[in-house]
């Protein structure tokens, strides 16, 4: 039995065309979380696929009339965090993947994208027109440029903090009003994607990881093609090398020499995309050191690996490399492989040069079967000792739950984001039975150290939001007051980031 009033479906069909109202069982399945053990848990009632902001506004008006919860997605490829599935079962997915307009301003290095524009779409657009602007892409570039930035996704270049490169939004508010932020608030302004602040309060970040509106256009700064890219792929032999490696790189990150966020990942982050567990051992228990050593030897990877890159004018890049060389002088690295690309060379063709990829998703196949993963990503101060402590505690928890440790530490300007994947096989019930308890134990461990997650799966949004507890959860009270003011009928993404409308609060 579909929970949605049939009259509402008819109204939606009148607004956007019946072919864009998708309510068959196959449609509902298509928008579930395909990484979930129980896909029915977050199954939507159906999906709507508007083609324009005007159609989104019309849908919002109807949703208000019938009190229908909408779950907006850009392209729905947020795998490991719920994909296209809503927090609440029976919500209606608002699939914006048909909205694919791209407006590039080559002279200013900016783009205005609609939510359906994927990284490959934008890449193809730039390539086909020979526009010398580079993307910053995440490890799974199948998804949306706008959606990834709004969810505070990250990439590998100096533009890798995607949310920080947002400049100007167009947003359909929960009552159907249409607003443009920053300089876009001035009709016809040429500065919409150039100057963030406009006049008065700024609202862009209010629509990141939020349920306070539906973004229909997003301005983003793109990196002008640099004259050169250079750096090293470093490998480190021992688990304890993590601490000094971070303490070597962080001062260079903090003082601005390193403009990207180097992400130091363990051997499994590299190996899980290249091979499968069963090729090395039939033992389902903790991985033997000899197995780990054999995998590392086969692929010539360290216990930890990190890629450091400099972007810009060749003179500056070369000078930066000399500083990096000095910083690592006499340090016990396992190996370093230099990389140098200069304008005019054949493309290096890698994510560090802004080329979109999907192969890192192959890590879902590590255990075989219908694989998946869920991400656990606490943020901590930029200290080697604290990173080592975090690594040891998390590693011990992975061991105690019989899971394979898969981790990285991305170095921001003033923080470390410790992205961990829990890789699993949905067809292994014994393994799946451990995932939830393990995730909760990890969050509790981080919270005990007063570390919060930067992003989380739809199953755990309340759990993570609960950790943000200053003054008896004052932030939640603020979020809730704003939610109630803007969305009194609670139609936009109930439960997103632990923000619930009136009457629905757990």
């Amino acid at each position: 039995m579909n929970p949605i009033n049939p009259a509402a479906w008819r109204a939606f069909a009148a607004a956007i065309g019946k072919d864009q109202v998708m309510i068959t069982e196959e449609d509902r399945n298509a928008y579930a979380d395909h990484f979930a053990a129980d896909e029915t848990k977050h199954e939507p009632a159906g999906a709507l696929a508007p083609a324009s902001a005007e159609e989104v506004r019309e849908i919002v008006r109807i949703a208000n009339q019938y009190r229908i919860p909408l779950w907006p997605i850009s392209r729905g490829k947020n795998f490991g965090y719920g994909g296209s599935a809503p927090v609440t079962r029976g919500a209606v997915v608002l699939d914006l993947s048909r909205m694919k307009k791209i407006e590039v301003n080559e002279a200013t290095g900016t783009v205005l994208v609609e939510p359906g524009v994927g990284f490959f779409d934008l890449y193809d657009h730039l390539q086909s027109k020979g526009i010398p602007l580079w993307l910053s892409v995440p490890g799974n570039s199948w998804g949306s440029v706008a959606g990834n930035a709004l969810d505070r996704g990250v990439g590998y270049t100096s533009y890798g903090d995607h949310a920080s490169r947002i400049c100007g939004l167009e947003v359909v508010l929960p009552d159907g009003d249409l607003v443009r932020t920053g300089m876009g608030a001035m009709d016809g302004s040429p500065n919409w994607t150039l100057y963030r602040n406009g006049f008065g309060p700024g609202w862009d970040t209010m629509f990141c990881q939020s349920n306070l509106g539906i973004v229909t256009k997003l301005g983003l700064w793109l990196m002008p093609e640099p004259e050169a890219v250079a750096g090293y792929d470093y490998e480190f032999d021992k688990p304890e090398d993590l601490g000094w490696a971070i303490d070597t790189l962080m001062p260079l990150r903090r003082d601005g020499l390193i403009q990207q966020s180097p992400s130091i990942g363990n051997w499994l982050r590299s190996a899980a995309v290249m091979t499968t567990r069963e090729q090395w051992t039939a033992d389902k228990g903790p991985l033997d050191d000899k197995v780990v050593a054999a995998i590392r030897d086969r692929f010539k990877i360290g216990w930890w690996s990190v890629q450091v890159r400099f972007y810009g004018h060749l003179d500056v890049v070369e000078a930066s490399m000399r500083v990096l060389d000095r910083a690592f002088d006499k340090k016990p690295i396992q190996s370093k492989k230099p990389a140098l690309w200069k304008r005019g060379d054949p493309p290096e063709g890698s994510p560090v040069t802004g080329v979109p990829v999907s192969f890192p998703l192959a890590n879902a196949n590590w255990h075989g079967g219908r694989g998946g993963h869920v991400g656990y990503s606490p943020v901590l101060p930029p200290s080697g000792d604290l990173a080592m402590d975090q690594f040891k505690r998390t590693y011990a928890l992975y061991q105690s739950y019989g899971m394979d440790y898969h981790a990285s530490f991305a170095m921001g300007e003033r923080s470390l984001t410790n992205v961990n994947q829990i890789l699993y096989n949905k067809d292994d019930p014994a393994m799946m039975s451990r995932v939830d308890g393990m995730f909760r134990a990890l969050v509790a461990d981080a919270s005990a150290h007063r570390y919060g997650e930067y992003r989380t799966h739809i199953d755990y949004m309340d759990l993570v939001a609960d950790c943000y507890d200053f003054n008896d959860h004052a932030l939640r009270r603020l979020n809730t007051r704003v939610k109630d003011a803007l969305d009194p009928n609670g139609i936009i993404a109930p439960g997103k980031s632990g923000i619930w409308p009136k009457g629905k609060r757990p």
Partner: protein
Amino acid sequence: MKRASLIIAGIALCGAAVGAQTPPAKDNGAQVVNPFRGVMQDRSSHSPDEALFVEKCGMCHRQMGMGTVLLARRMDPAIARLEQRDDLTTDYVKLAARQGIGNMPRIGRGEVSDVQLDRIAAYLAEGTTQ
């Protein structure tokens, strides 16, 4: 058209394999080695249907796509790319897309309409006895 483009793509694939190490006995040699260089796809096309395949499927099913990488573990790597297959029927392509298969998620109608999927399936089934 599909066959002609294969030759070009084949060359690109060989280029991507340069530097690969000798595989151990247990793997089939098609796995990713040094995955962070030379992973740029050939995104070119020679017909509107091929262009649609590239737009909707190429990110996973051309060179170094997740689908290609995983299929190469399960079958002859020479035919890991869907465009290299000569056994795909339109019904099979449509079923795999809508139902998902293995690690491939279901592809909804919002992302690829029925009309678009028909065109993609016909492109992939070119040369297959239906």
